C-alpha cells in the first residue's frame, strides 16, 4: 500500500496507524521556536523527537573573536527572560579565569539582581505555564508584578530585558536610594502576591488534575537526564549551586533550598513557588545588609573608565577622540581553563573557558540548562498525551535562546 502524502508529510493510511505531527516551531505552547516531531497513536505519543537550532546564532564561535568585556552583551541574548542572571554567571566565570577581585558591595548587588531576575523569570514561567494549562487569570496577575521588577531594572541600568549590567570586576552602576525604596516596597508586598497566586491555582481542581502525576521523573532518572535547577529539585535532589559552590555573596545569605518529593509537574510547581519566598528573603537580606564601598574592583580589565587613575586611554584615530578602544590584547592573563557554573532560574548555567593568555577567550562553551531539558523531553514525553506534553514543556521551563545559543 502506498503511503498517502500531503505536501511531503505522511498521513495515517490504515497500514501504519501512526500519525506524524510536527508541533511547532510556531506553536505558542512551545515557548519560542521549539519543534517537536511526534508519532501519535490516537492522542498518545509513541515517539517524541524535539528539534532545535532555529535560534542558533553561533555565540560560542562569536565569543572567540571578541574580548571578554564585549562578550557580556551576548549573554543577555541567551536566556532573555533573566538576562541579569546570565550576566552575573558570565562575569563570575571570567573573574575566576582571570583572577579579578570583586568588591563586597558589587557582590551584594549581584546577588540582589540575580534574585530579582529569578523572581521575574519564575513569574513569567508561572504565567505562561498556567496559560498553557488553561488558567488565564494567573497570567495577568504575574505580569503585574513582573512589570515592577522590569521597571526597577530599567531604573538600574536603562534596559528592561537586555541588561548588560555587570562588568568584569563589578557592576556598571550603583543602586540608588530610590531603587532601594521601591525594592523594599516590592519585597514587603510580594509574599501577599504569592499567596494570591496560590489561592488561584494551588487547590484548583483542574490545575491538580493537569499537574499531579504528570511527567513524573524519579531522582535517579533526573540525574541521568542531566536536569538541573527546580526541574531536578522537584524530584528530590537537593542540588543548588548557590549552596554547593557559592559565588558572589551567596555564602553570606541565609536561605533554604526547596526540594520536592514526587517529581511530577505539581512538585516542580511547588518548588518554584517556594523559591519565590526564598528569593524574597534573600532580597530582604540584601537590602538590610548592603555594604558601602566601591562597585568596581581596582584591577578590573577591559572596561576603561575615564575616572580611573593610573591608566592610559587609547583613542581611535579614525573615529576621533570619541571612541575609546575596548580591545586589550595584553599578554597578562594566565593561560588555563576553568568551568564555572551558576544557578540561573532555569538551572545550571555553566561557562567553560580556555584562555590562551590573550584578551579574548580561546574557547568558550556555554552549558545551558534549557538545552539539556529539551533533550530530556524525548524521554519524558514518551507515552504521554499531547495535552500533557504541553504541561511538561511548561514545567521544564525552557527558553530557546539559551538552548540554541
Amino acid at each position, binding site marked *: 500500500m502506498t503511503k498517502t502524502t500531503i505536501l511531503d508529510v505522511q498521513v495515517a493510511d490504515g497500514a501504519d496507524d501512526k500519525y506524524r505531527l510536527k508541533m511547532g516551531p510556531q506553536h505558542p505552547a512551545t515557548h519560542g521556536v521549539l519543534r517537536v516531531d511526534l508519532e501519535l497513536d490516537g492522542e498518545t505519543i509513541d515517539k517524541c523527537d524535539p528539534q*532545535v537550532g532555529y535560534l542558533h546564532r553561533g555565540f560560542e564561535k562569536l565569543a572567540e573573536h571578541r574580548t571578554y568585556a564585549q562578550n557580556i552583551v551576548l549573554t543577555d541574548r541567551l536566556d532573555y527572560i533573566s538576562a541579569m542572571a546570565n550576566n552575573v554567571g558570565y562575569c563570575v566565570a571570567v573573574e575566576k579565569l582571570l583572577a579579578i577581585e570583586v568588591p563586597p558591595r558589587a557582590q551584594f548587588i549581584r546577588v540582589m539582581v540575580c534574585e530579582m531576575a529569578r523572581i521575574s523569570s519564575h513569574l513569567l514561567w508561572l504565567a505562561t505555564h498556567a496559560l498553557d494549562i488553561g488558567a488565564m487569570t494567573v497570567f495577568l496577575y504575574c505580569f503585574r508584578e513582573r512589570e515592577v521588577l522590569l521597571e526597577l531594572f530599567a531604573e538600574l541600568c536603562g534596559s528592561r530585558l537586555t541588561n548588560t549590567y555587570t562588568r568584569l570586576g563589578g557592576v556598571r552602576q550603583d543602586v540608588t536610594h530610590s531603587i532601594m525604596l521601591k525594592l523594599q516596597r516590592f519585597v514587603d508586598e510580594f509574599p501577599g502576591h504569592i499567596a494570591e497566586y496560590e489561592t488561584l491555582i494551588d487547590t484548583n481542581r483542574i490545575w491538580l488534575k493537569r499537574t499531579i502525576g504528570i511527567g513524573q521523573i524519579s531522582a535517579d532518572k533526573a540525574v541521568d537526564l*542531566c536536569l538541573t535547577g527546580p526541574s531536578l529539585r522537584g524530584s528530590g535532589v537537593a542540588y543548588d549551586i548557590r549552596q*554547593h559552590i557559592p559565588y558572589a555573596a551567596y555564602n553570606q545569605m541565609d536561605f533554604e533550598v526547596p526540594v520536592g518529593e514526587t517529581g511530577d509537574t505539581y512538585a516542580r510547581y511547588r518548588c518554584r513557588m517556594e523559591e519565590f519566598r526564598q528569593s524574597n528573603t534573600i532580597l530582604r537580606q540584601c537590602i538590610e545588609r548592603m555594604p558601602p564601598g566601591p562597585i568596581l574592583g581596582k584591577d578590573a580589565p577591559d572596561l576603561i573608565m575615564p575616572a580611573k587613575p593610573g591608566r592610559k586611554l587609547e583613542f581611535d584615530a579614525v573615529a576621533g577622540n570619541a571612541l575609546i578602544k575596548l580591545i586589550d590584547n595584553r599578554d597578562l592573563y594566565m593561560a*588555563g581553563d576553568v*568551568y564555572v557554573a551558576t544557578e540561573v532560574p532555569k538551572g545550571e548555567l*555553566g561557562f567553560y573557558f580556555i584562555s590562551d*593568555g590573550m584578551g579574548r577567550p*580561546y574557547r568558550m562553551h556555554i552549558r545551558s540548562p534549557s538545552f539539556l531539558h529539551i533533550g530530556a523531553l524525548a524521554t519524558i514525553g514518551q507515552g504521554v498525551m499531547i495535552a500533557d506534553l504541553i504541561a511538561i514543556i511548561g514545567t521544564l521551563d525552557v527558553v530557546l535562546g539559551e538552548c540554541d545559543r
Partner: protein
Amino acid sequence: MEPIRIAAQLEEKFPDSILGIMEHRGQVTTSVARTPIVEIIQFLKTEHQMNHLNCLCGVDNLHRTAHVGERFEVIYQLYSIENRILLRLKAQVPEAEPAIDSICGLWTGANWLERETYDLFGIIFNNHPNLKRILTPDDWQGHPLRKDYALKGDQEWSGFEQLKEKAAQLKQFEF
C-alpha cells in the same frame, strides 16, 4: 576526598591511560587517552559518586600556543552531588581519526551533548544511538567551531533554494 587525590587514584588504576594532571585556579584536570574513556568515567561514577555530568564539549587546539597533545579534545566535567567535588577529564582525540566512545550508556543526557560536539567539531562518537547534526541543518557543510572554519563567509546555505521552491509550491494552496 580531594579532586587531586582522586586524579592520583585514577593514575594508579589506569596507569597507561592517564597522560597528565593539571591544576588551574583550584580546578583539577586530568588528561586521558581516548580508548578507556567509558571505563574511566564509569569508575569515577561508581567509586567516587561523580553522578552529575556538568558539561561535555569539544576543543580544537589548532591555533593554541604551547600546546602538547592532539588537535581535538573532548572535555568531560563531572561533579559529585554528594561529595561536592568537581573533576575535569580531557580526552585526546587525534585529527586523523576524530572518534571517541560515546558515554550515552552512563548518562542519557549525554546524548544531545555528544550530538552538539559532533555537529560543531566533527568528532564522531562511537555507539551513539542517533548521531546527527543538532544545531545546524542536516545538510550543513563543515563544522563551525573548528578553528579553520571562518567566522564570516559569503556562501549561502544549500537548503535555501529548496526553501524558496517550497514557498512557491505552497503558494497554490493560498497559504
